């Protein structure tokens, strides 16, 4: 089996087989990334498709010292932001009251990641993006504000709103789970 470095080299030369191998290696993980930013599976697949085309076209710029998965994730996120940016212009984010919840997410561990993805997808669009960027990708609010062209305050408020919504959803899931456990459902 080819190692990652050789695979990249062959992809750079345009080998379709190598590109397919690289796709097989990372497409499932990247699909999860796209699903988190998309509103539906179809949209996520569109992002994935566009993202991989960008990956193959940009491989010459990939530095071997970086981690390929991280680099590809960044490309997917950028593609996702490009998808949403148009919509975000149509529906500008609005500052909301700052809410600070430090409590741990209740019942998160009991849920399958697909359920979590569904929760994230149900968030308002702005909240969804900011939540993904901040909580999962690990960007700071300053970075997010630069990426999205919004203020730091807007980023924080959108994130806070996302947290509240998710907490509520998690609590609801938890209650349902308890009720199921107690035999009431």
């Amino acid at each position, binding site marked *: 089996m080819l190692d990652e470095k050789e695979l990249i080299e062959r992809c750079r030369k345009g080998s379709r087989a190598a590109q*397919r191998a690289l796709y097989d290696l990372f497409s499932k993980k990247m*699909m999860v990334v796209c699903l988190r930013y998309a509103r539906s599976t179809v949209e996520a697949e569109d992002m994935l498709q566009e993202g*991989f085309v960008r990956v193959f*076209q940009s491989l010459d710029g990939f530095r071997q010292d970086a981690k390929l998965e991280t680099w590809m994730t960044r490309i997917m996120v950028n593609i996702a932001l490009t998808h949403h940016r148009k919509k975000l212009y149509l529906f500008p984010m609005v500052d909301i009251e700052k809410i600070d919840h430090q409590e*741990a*997410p209740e019942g998160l561990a009991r*849920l399958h990641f697909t359920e979590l993805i569904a929760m994230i997808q149900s968030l308002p669009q702005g909240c969804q993006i900011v939540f993904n960027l901040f*909580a999962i990708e690990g960007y700071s609010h300053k970075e997010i504000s630069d990426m999205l062209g919004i203020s730091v305050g807007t980023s924080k408020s959108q994130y806070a709103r996302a947290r509240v919504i998710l907490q509520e959803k998690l609590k609801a899931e938890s209650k349902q789970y308890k009720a199921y456990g107690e035999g009431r459902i």
Partner: protein
Amino acid sequence: MEKGEFEKKWGDAFEGAEVSPSDSVWTNIELDLERAAGSKMKRRMLFYKLLAAASLVFAMGIGAVYYLQVTPEGNKNSLATQHETQGVEESPEKPVAANTESNPFGDSEISSAAPGLSATIDNFQADNEPLLADANRSDRVRIEHQSSTESQSRTEHKSPGLQAANHQQNKTPGNENDRGNNALAEQNIASTLDDSGVRNDQTIGKANQELVAMDDNKILDNRKLPPLTLLKNPELIIAKKENESTADPGMVLLAKLRDEEMKYEKEEKKKSQREELWTSVAFGAGTFSPNAGSSSMIQASDIHGLSSSHVNSPSSGSSYSFGVQLGGKIANRVVLVGGVSYLTQNASYMSNIASMESMNLKAELNDMAYFSTNNRAVTTSPYNVSSNLQYISVPTQIGYVVVDRKFAIQLNGGVSSDIFILNTLTPDAADVSKSSQGPGNDSPYRPVLFSGLAGTEFSYRFSDKYRVALNPGVRYALNSMYKDGVSTEASPITYDVAIRFRYIFK
């Protein structure tokens, strides 16, 4: 807002998470990649098409401007415009000098603009000498308006210049409507009046009538006119910068883009087929000429008083070589090749001397050089002797790659250090035996012979790692194959063709 347990748990929730996308995603990716490759070419083609179209439009625009400025119609228009401007500013109110040479526009201009009017002027002046004399006495004459409907209607059937004359007559300070259409004619008339200082309707009318019979060329010949006015179709001459290209800039750009494109393709191709280091085995064969410059025949008186028959000079022979080489690219098109090869050169001679060793006659060459070092030589009946020189050759060559493709052409030049090994003389005579001479103090042969090398290598790459080459070339000895103390000299020339099989390391 700091990242806490909430964010960590969410982050961890997706660790190792995988979802399989549908099969159509890869199909679409493949299609997109193919499309991207195709559209890249399409974009280039579209760009070229647009560029070509733009160039065409540009060329047509330039052509239209050129046509309007150069053709007679264009000239008329432009001249009319020019004169209109000048006429409006100067003619009605300008004081007219009595001297005809003071005409601000010059006679030639009048002639060039309206030759018919020039005729009018000539006749006018000829017929009105007394009047002109009177006019010359006046310091200033102002143009006065005199309407003449009859004159106007008469001149409408004549030349534009004559019509213009009538328009001029009809002109009043307040009547500016005619200026636009007849500006040229007006100006000409104004000039006429400037020359003469007098305007007379009857005179002009008479002049108009006479003009019909006038020869324009004659009029032009009689006057001092600038060369341009003698041309029927004057050309627009635009001063060009010395180094300015006359090529269509669009096409130049197109050519440059094409060059860039080809250059890019070449570089891409080279990247995949670069030849940085290689080794080769070579076999060469050719003709060998000893090229003995001052070889002398042994005369009987030279050796113990024995007589000798006439002996021929050394003839040409053959050369064979076999060796290995190592080559490398030292610049974009420059290669350095070195190696080692075994070289053998054969030539037939006629000799009439032999060396006496232990009562045996051994073949010797008919060289004075060798003879002078060999006291045991004796003359014999002439016999054929075949000389076989053997060298170890260490060539070093610089090559310039003229064509660097699958089929390549390379010009080579360099020097070779040929280390002498052995010379074997094989006689064609029963009483003379074979002899050999190696290097050493008693050898007339120079231990190292330096030769200049030049050749052209035609090669063909038949796989990623192999190239076969045909190399016709010449090898010319830079010094004599004999030692300095030897009186004769021989600088052999070899013309050979070598076949090389090259293995490309990288």
